[in-house]
């Protein structure tokens, strides 16, 4: 069974540009989560999808971040326009069930905004 995959693995963009991150969850997992780790800080929750619906987006930093999950399969996270403080590692995780059950993480996308 394939794990959670993320693309790209690295992205370097200039301030003001747009970047789109993609996450493919484990097949059959309705629950998809985005997290972010900023240097020196802990991994923090961004949002949670159940199928194509946003269940909780309270962790999104501001309206420059837009997440979508069309068709309830893969998800994209777009940052527009990017700012320096958006640099970090963005992780996607998926889970078969909602609630306190194991979430399987992808390898992450390292975003550097210069």
């Amino acid at each position, binding site marked *: 069974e394939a794990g*959670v995959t993320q693309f790209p693995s690295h992205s370097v963009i200039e301030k003001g540009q747009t970047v789109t991150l993609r996450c493919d969850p484990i097949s059959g997992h309705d629950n998809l989560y985005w*997290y972010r780790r900023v240097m020196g800080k*802990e*991994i923090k929750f961004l949002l949670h999808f159940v199928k194509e619906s946003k269940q*909780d987006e309270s962790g999104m930093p501001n309206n420059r971040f837009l997440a979508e999950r069309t068709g309830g399969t893969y998800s994209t996270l777009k940052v527009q326009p990017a700012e320096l403080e958006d640099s970090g590692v963005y992780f996607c995780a998926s889970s078969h069930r909602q609630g*306190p059950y194991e*979430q*399987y*993480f992808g390898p*992450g996308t390292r975003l550097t905004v210069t």
Partner: protein
Amino acid sequence: EDQVTQSPEALRLQEGESSSLNCSYTVSGLRGLFWYRQDPGKGPEFLFTLYSAGEEKEKERLKATLTKKESFLHITAPKPEDSATYLCAAFEGGNNRLAFGKGNQVVVIP
């Protein structure tokens, strides 16, 4: 305010030298306490979930325990391949999400 605090931040062990990592949490209504392992450049890898105080789980040289305020990850007779960052995360009752600590970076020296 930190909900999950891990200590020590970094730990160097000689191969075979057992030790314990601490994770203290202040979340209300804990529904699960998770331990993950993370290697450099990779995503967190699931290890354990503990659901109630007194619960213990083991996997190879790792043993996780849970009390009402903290969890411990015991590493028995570690090997160099146990070198990694160990992450603790609490699943809080009002929010459907994991709240992570900063991690314990463990280096096991041959």
